[in-house]
């Protein structure tokens, strides 16, 4: 997981990893960079009772949005974040494209961690930039609601500037969540999503 930390002088363990990776490359189209930059885990979260506002101004309870029958993929961004968030949103945009092509049922949910700035209007504009369709919703609300959600999904890092590069997904209510932390490629996300077996 420490792939960003500078660690260029390699131990024998890393050599083993390289050999394995090269072997892996021979048998799949995974790229080396892709396979090493995120961490996968599973977890269960208690979904808090908070209200959110969708980018079209629609107000609703978060659980209602979450449990609407579609399998969910969820991330946290804010509009004025220019380095990481565009990347996360690009990934969601590609995932949307791929899952739509495959004719899958899914719901991408993007929650703002700067809700006082990210009004429904600015989220609408943001959604347009990433060609978000009907299966991709953006949520804002009160600061407390956003904080509560970040904490519930263990995504809270104290401030928006510390925010985590994170994707969460779940097939149906009651099932555990798959948590991908770090840099995940759209293909990886789709692979993980299919492994949930939600649309089988």
């Amino acid at each position, binding site marked *: 997981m420490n*792939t*960003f930390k*500078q660690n*260029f*002088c*390699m131990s024998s363990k890393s050599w083993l990893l*390289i050999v394995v*990776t*090269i072997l892996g*490359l021979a048998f799949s189209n995974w*790229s*080396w*960079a*892709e396979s090493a*930059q995120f961490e996968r885990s599973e977890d269960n979260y208690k979904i808090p009772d908070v209200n959110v506002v969708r980018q079209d101004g629609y107000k609703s309870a978060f659980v209602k949005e979450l449990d609407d029958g579609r399998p969910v993929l969820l991330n946290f961004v*804010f509009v*004025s*974040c*220019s*380095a*990481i*968030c*565009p*990347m996360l949103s*690009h*990934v969601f945009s*590609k995932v949307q494209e791929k899952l739509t092509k495959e004719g899958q049922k899914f719901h991408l949910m993007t929650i703002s961690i*700067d*809700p*006082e*700035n990210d009004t429904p209007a600015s989220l609408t504009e943001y959604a347009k930039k990433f060609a978000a369709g009907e299966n991709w919703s953006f949520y804002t609300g*009160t*600061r407390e609601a956003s904080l509560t959600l970040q904490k519930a999904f263990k995504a809270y*890092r104290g*401030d*928006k*500037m*510390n*925010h*985590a*590069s994170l994707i969460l997904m779940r097939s149906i209510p009651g099932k555990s969540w798959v948590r991908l932390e770090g*840099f995940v*490629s*759209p*293909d990886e996300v789709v692979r993980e999503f299919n492994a949930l077996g939600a649309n089988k």
Partner: protein
Amino acid sequence: MFMQSPIQQMLGCQILGLLKSRFFFSLLFIFSITVVQADSLSASPEEIELGRRIYLEGVLASGEPLKAVRQNTVQLEGASAACEACHRRSGMGSLEGNIPVPPISGRFLYAPIEDRVLALVDTRQAKDLTRAHVPYDEKSLAKAIRDGMHVSGREMSILMPHYALTDKEIKAVSAYLSQLSVSLSPGVGDDSVHFSTIITPDVDPKKSAVMIDMLRHAFEQRNSSQQTYSGRMRMPLDLIPRKLRNWDLSVWELKGAPDTWGVQLAEFNKKDPVFAVVSGISASTWNPIDQFCQQEKLPCLLPNVISPPENPSYYSLYFSRGVVLEAEVLAGYLTDKEKKAPHRVVQIYRDNEVGMNASRAFTKALAGSEVIVENHVLLGTKQDDLKVAMKGVSSKDSVMLWLNSSDLAVFNKFMAKQVPQNVFVSGYLTSENYSFNSKALNPHLRVVYPYELGDKRKKNVTAMKEWLKSWRLPLVDEPFQTEVFFDALFLTDLTSQMLDNLYRDYLIERAEDMLSLGSNVSAYPHLSLSRGQRFASKGAYIARIGDDGKLVADSAYIVP
């Protein structure tokens, strides 16, 4: 390409081993100096301009948008591919999440290791400083830009996109980076940093005196304890060596009409250039000052103003949108679906910039709703003038009074017999002075209040109160004074995190990123900025005055 990378990493490892020999070091040193000099000598203004457009705007020489790829799939284009999006305007980099974007201005890219400057990568972890690397040259820069390959041979984080730039374009970017953030900004001397604060002629001299007194004491305190670098030694940050620089403060007191302020400011700044303007105060307009700050590329940090420009320039930061924010909050409150909206609201305001801006914003915010807004201008200061302004207002109406406390005192006398159903006043304009209130008015009175209330407020302002006590300074206007106190504290925090990289653009970038990370010692509920955001506090309460004379929230915190 990815398949090669482990091997390249290994090569990098060997190079690193080589580097440990002094001989190689000195060879490299001589070599790099030649490179840097060659670079800056050969760069033409056209080349730098081409580099600037790629770096800042994401536009290529051909006028085509700059393009980049990431993970071989995701395309970036134009402004979102521009280097500035991550490395920022100053070239000093940034940090989002746990991924540092390193500084890439010439001093960081090309300097030999012995001469390298330090920057703090993660202000939350003072030990996280920029790392030493072999100086880049045009070839290794090209590899970084095209293939995401670090000069050490390491493959960089995939956050750094890959760009298919031509040799000419790489050269141009290199030329731009070589001259970016090289010399310290105006106002920064070898052993001093000059700041100023600005006072417009409409301000009560007693109020501006309070501000100046607070700022001077804060500067004095900071200077007398700066031996520990930041003025304190609570954090590892304070132990990073840097130059000791004494701070001094000029007070730029403006005279005459607003359209002459620009010239006066230019004269002040020519005589005694400053690194930044800290705080400042106006009871009327701030537009000429905002424009001046933009023109001089001078950071103007968080003045005490209630009617800031609607679209501030890059270099000016504000606490809030002032009365315009209040207008929108009130409109939101009145049109809340859970309550019955009033049929009509009469707003009374003075014919000055504050009154005009507030009333215009209120009308605009209620346009399209069912509430009818009627505008009445208050001229003069006598009871009869009020009578004119209040014409047609009955006890069934709602009124919004964009008036200060002395105007409101006259109003209340006049209104004693038939108080309108709802009387709203501005928290900014009344500035904590509710002496106009009366038994008859109180049940109808609501304050649009941009500050925190109750225990949380008490807790947040304790630091300032104690500080005032320790310097025997008076407490006369709590929210106002917390703004000044916040400014002083924020400035010391910001500059100590900047180490010796005292560039104006970097100051703005740090301020955008760090504002919400410091402790909130202001009277506002919370303060936060980000790239491009210029107003730190974004909402307000509707409050009433309780039996004990203190304000109580009558609504949730409303963010329009």
